[in-house]
């Protein structure tokens, strides 16, 4: 019954292309990654376990996720937070180091997100010292059994370590070590030497748990990733178009010149961001008159990615 409905639905080519562009653009530009992580399952499981322990058992934890630019760090944190929401619901608090350049701003953001009592609407009252005292008071009153666990996610952790005195980090880690309200502090950074940046007293309160997301795929896995990123979801309305698209992507990935291009990209960087840039340039050429990605498109896109900008600026 549903199959009949699907085979009847046959959209005009323009509409198909529009939908295709919409789906793929959302995936490539918003940096959406496939749900199933390959190569990093162990790390994800570890993180999930830690968060579950905080949420369910009320254990305070702190962990640092380290990985190069363009690996799955943010995504990992978000996915795990979602998945661990079973059991006790925890309040989460993503704070980006890029935005909160100062401890005062960070503290205001925390108070705002936790909806503490000194927040009215959007405005946070009181000075930095008052806010800090209030937050610590609020966290201190709880204990393992009665209060909700709070999850702090600190993006760009190394930038927080550059704040004056590292007060925020010190206080958060202090709370995580003492028998107060259960919190979990997850720091995300791309620097391997981030522990050197921490002061002695902060470092001693940190649990020294680090999760390294250093996945390094082999070349066939890389080509597989390209294929999955270009594939359409199963519920695409026009089945025939989806089939054609899938076949064209498959033949694209098996083409020899395309393989050379992908090998070159693989050798220079293996992360998702550069792959997305390449695929985005190819995708922008897909139109009604050319409803598939040709090898020539990929070659052209690769040339654009690798062009030497200083040589371009010379007057010929």
């Amino acid at each position, binding site marked *: 019954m549903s199959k009949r409905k699907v085979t009847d639905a046959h959209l005009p080519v323009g509409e198909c292309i*529009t939908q295709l*562009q919409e789906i793929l653009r*959302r995936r490539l*530009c918003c940096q959406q990654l496939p749900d199933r992580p390959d190569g990093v399952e162990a790390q994800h499981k570890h993180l999930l376990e830690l968060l579950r322990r905080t949420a369910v058992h009320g254990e305070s934890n702190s962990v640092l996720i380290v990985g190069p630019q363009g690996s799955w760090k943010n995504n990992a944190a978000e996915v795990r937070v979602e998945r661990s929401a079973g059991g006790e619901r925890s309040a989460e608090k993503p704070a980006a180091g890029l*935005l*909160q350049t*100062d401890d005062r701003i960070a503290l205001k953001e925390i108070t705002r997100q936790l909806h503490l009592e000194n927040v009215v609407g959007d405005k946070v009252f009181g000075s930095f010292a008052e806010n800090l005292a209030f937050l610590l008071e609020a966290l201190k009153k709880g204990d393992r059994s009665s209060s909700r666990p709070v999850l702090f996610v600190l993006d760009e952790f190394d930038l927080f370590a550059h704040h004056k005195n590292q007060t925020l980090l010190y206080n958060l880690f202090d709370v995580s070590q003492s028998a107060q309200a259960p919190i979990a502090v997850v720091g995300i950074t791309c620097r391997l030497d981030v522990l050197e940046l921490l002061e002695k007293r902060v470092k001693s309160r940190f649990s020294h748990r680090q999760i390294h997301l250093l996945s390094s795929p082999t070349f066939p896995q890389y080509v597989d990733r390209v294929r999955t990123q270009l594939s359409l979801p199963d519920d695409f309305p026009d089945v025939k178009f989806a089939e054609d698209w899938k076949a064209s992507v498959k033949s694209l990935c098996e083409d020899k010149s395309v393989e050379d291009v992908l090998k070159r990209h693989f050798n220079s960087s293996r992360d998702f961001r550069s792959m997305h840039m390449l695929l985005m340039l190819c995708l922008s050429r897909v139109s009604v008159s050319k409803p598939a990605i040709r090898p020539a498109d990929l070659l052209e896109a690769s040339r654009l990615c690798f062009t030497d900008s200083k040589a371009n600026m010379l007057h010929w």
Partner: protein
Amino acid sequence: MTALLEHPGYEEQRLRSSAEKLPSRELQAGMLLSLMGQPQQYSYPSVFIYGHRASGKSHVMQVLLKELELPHATVSCVECVSVVLLFEQVLLSFFGCDVASLLPRSPSLSDFVRIYRQQCSQTPAKQTRYIVMEKAELLRDTDANLLPALLRLQELVEDNVTVILLSEIVWDKFRPNTGCFEPLLLHFPDYSKAELQQILSQDRHPSYSAEFYSSYINILLGVFYSVCRDLRELRHLAALNFSKFCEPLAEGKVKETDTHKLWRNIEPHLKKAMQTVYLREVSSLQWEQMQQMEEKESGALRGLSAHTHVELPYYSKFLLIAAYLASYNPARTDKRFFLKHHGKIRKTNFLKKNEKTSNHLLGPKPFPLDRLLAIFYSVVDSRVAPTASIFSQISSLVTLQLLTQVSHDDQLDAPKYKCAVSMDFICAISRTVSFDIVKYLYDFL
């Protein structure tokens, strides 16, 4: 001949009018359009466009955004001395002045992102919003977190927004130390000679025919293309020299089609103009007046830079002469020149050691201030009191770049200087004070 820009998401009429306004930039405009996609689709979070001055970067962006009526905010980083101006401008363009006034007194990036996020949850973007930042190289001098945050703005505010950076400097010079989100790089190449011809012929004067003007542009490009490819400079030159070109036509001596005679008329003037391309040493009005004057006196071709008369006060001239003597005479010969009673100087010793190389060939040597003052007092006829005005004249000579300070700024009690003028200049100056400098120079003994 305008190639068509085609894209399904936009009206054909608008695309055609855009294409007419963008001659010889069809390739880049087409690329931008394909990246932008249909208005409701997502686009790459940040795009970096680079190219030389006057290569059409802002022009293409403005034409595309205005003709296709896409929501955009154009910010010039030169105007945004503080980030609050940038935030206000963006919020004003997208959400109106009420939202812009929600920004607190000295907002941080965190406040901006929070307010933006609140607003776009109330009014989500139906079409991609564009933030165009011109002169983006100035973003490198602001806070270190602004540029990486702007490149990832789409992710931070969770909205369909694209940031486009326009700059004359390549991306390699922008990249922060720990890396950031890499934008898509797009290059706008220089215009070729034919394209310049096509664009410049569009500003033709209404009272002359198009072929006449394009033959003029042809001549102009033939002369100036090898030195200058900047469209703005070439337009300025074309406007400046056109009246000269049309002079014989106005006087009735030649016809419009007589290109050879016109060329012979304009050639010397273009040659003269070549020496002052980009320089703007005089204003355009003065330049035209000079053209008229030079015709009457057929003098030698002199650049404008030769007109440097420097009038110095009396004691400054003597200070300069003293500095020249201090620079080009070795220190041991001072006794002989400037003391009334000097002993015998044994010439033989130092003749063998140094091969009597002329000090003038070696360049000026540094000398301490005391030596300068000693020579100065002996050179000046009258008794001069060592007042502050004498010392301030030394500083003025340094500012005029006639003397150069060689010692570090920290050493206040024994500064060292070097004389930076040529022999002709100092001879001219010493002639005005009737001082025979050649008698005092060691090289001319």
